């Protein structure tokens, strides 16, 4: 039975997005100190997926120029550090590409310092690196950034705490249910086992999906190392949503 067969004045049939249960970190993760006064204490209330939830902002090319995907450009000179290409696809969980969707990223510089007034890590700022970028996926859901590999940096969560190198990624998908902000990590980082943010994801398989893969095929000779990282957003359930649950 298709959506069209079922549509009439009294009945609205909407797509339904799969549950993300068990994927994301629990909000109350005591090992992450900043969660202690910010994570809600009350249980979350189930929200049915209505029109507001199955739609979302379709923000695309009007917000982005090609130069925004090159974080090494736009300054007087080249930033210091290891030049990298980060590329991959945005998919939903039934394997379909998510085209024309805005991706925003931000990161520390090669020394592990953010160009932000709150960051007082005594590592050098780089006048040629700000650390923000954006792009829109193509018709096959592909994205590509050129940047430098961010450094690890210390933070005050516990004694001798260091964050593994990471790039923050923000994604919209096509529906409010698909909105995701996460972090991409680099392979074989020795800090993984010690990081409460990385380890806040309970399932090790899910955790490993945040780690990009080095790819010699993407690596450009004499210029930049290539990393591949696919992002999977909630897809639709296979069956049409039955409306008789009300």
């Amino acid at each position, binding site marked *: 039975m298709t959506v069209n067969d079922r549509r009439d004045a009294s009945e609205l049939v909407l797509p339904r997005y799969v549950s993300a249960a068990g994927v994301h970190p629990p909000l109350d993760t005591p090992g992450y100190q900043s969660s202690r006064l910010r994570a809600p204490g009350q249980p979350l209330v189930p929200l049915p997926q209505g029109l507001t939830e199955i739609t979302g902002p379709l923000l695309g090319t009007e917000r982005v120029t090609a130069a925004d995907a090159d974080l090494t450009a736009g300054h007087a000179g080249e930033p210091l550090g290891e030049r990298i290409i980060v590329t991959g696809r945005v998919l939903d969980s039934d394997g379909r590409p998510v085209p024309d969707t805005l991706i925003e990223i*931000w990161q520390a510089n090669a020394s592990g310092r953010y160009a932000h007034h709150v960051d007082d890590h005594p590592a050098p700022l780089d006048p040629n690196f700000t650390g923000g970028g954006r792009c829109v996926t193509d018709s096959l859901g592909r994205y590509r950034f050129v940047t430098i590999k961010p450094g690890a940096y210390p933070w005050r969560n516990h004694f001798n705490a260091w964050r593994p190198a990471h790039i923050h990624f923000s994604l919209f998908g096509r529906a409010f249910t698909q909105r995701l902000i996460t972090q991409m990590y680099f392979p074989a980082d020795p800090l993984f086992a010690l990081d409460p943010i990385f380890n806040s994801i309970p399932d090790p398989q899910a955790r490993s999906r945040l780690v990009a893969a080095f790819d010699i095929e993407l690596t450009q000779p004499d210029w930049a190392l290539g990393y591949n990282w696919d992002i999977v957003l909630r897809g639709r359930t296979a069956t049409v949503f039955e409306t008789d649950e009300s």
Partner: protein
Amino acid sequence: MSHDRHNHGGQLNQGLTPSQTVGPFLAIGLPWADGPFVVPPDTPGSIVIKGRVVDGAGQPVPDALVETWQADPDGRFDHPDDPRGPAPAAASFRGFGRSATDPEGNYRIVTFRPGALPCPGGGTEAPHLDVSVFARGLLDRVVTRMYFPDQIDANGADPVLASIADPVRKATLIAIDEADGRFRFDIRLQGDGETVFFDV
């Protein structure tokens, strides 16, 4: 895997990419100059929604990002998955708002009042905005809804509000009318008066 709660639907996590916190430096990547303006400044008929994000100690959260998503005044979405078809042209209405909090934890959105919405299975949702909050300390976004205080009948018939039995909790989802098209919607992340947050 050993975690029983991950095995919903018989598929392990569906291969989904997990969330991580935005951390303290989201200002490098996320705020837009036009973010708070769902409609351009001073658009006739626009409203202003302001509020403060506070933590479990009642302290302001100065490094949060508040995002809103809503229908237009006719209850329509400019989106292909709205089965009612294309929304009437309202070129200047984006539906989406984004505001970083200031040092006092305040955010601000300029928009239109949304219309009511039909529900799958019948019934009507009262006019509302879906609100996401991202911040250091939040490993995933938290989602709430803002409703309007003068929509008494519509709010009374709203299925989502009806699902919250405790009137004190329910009241956290209703904005305060500050007159002249200004509404206050404070967001308390934790503790006394904690805002209702949803699992969407």
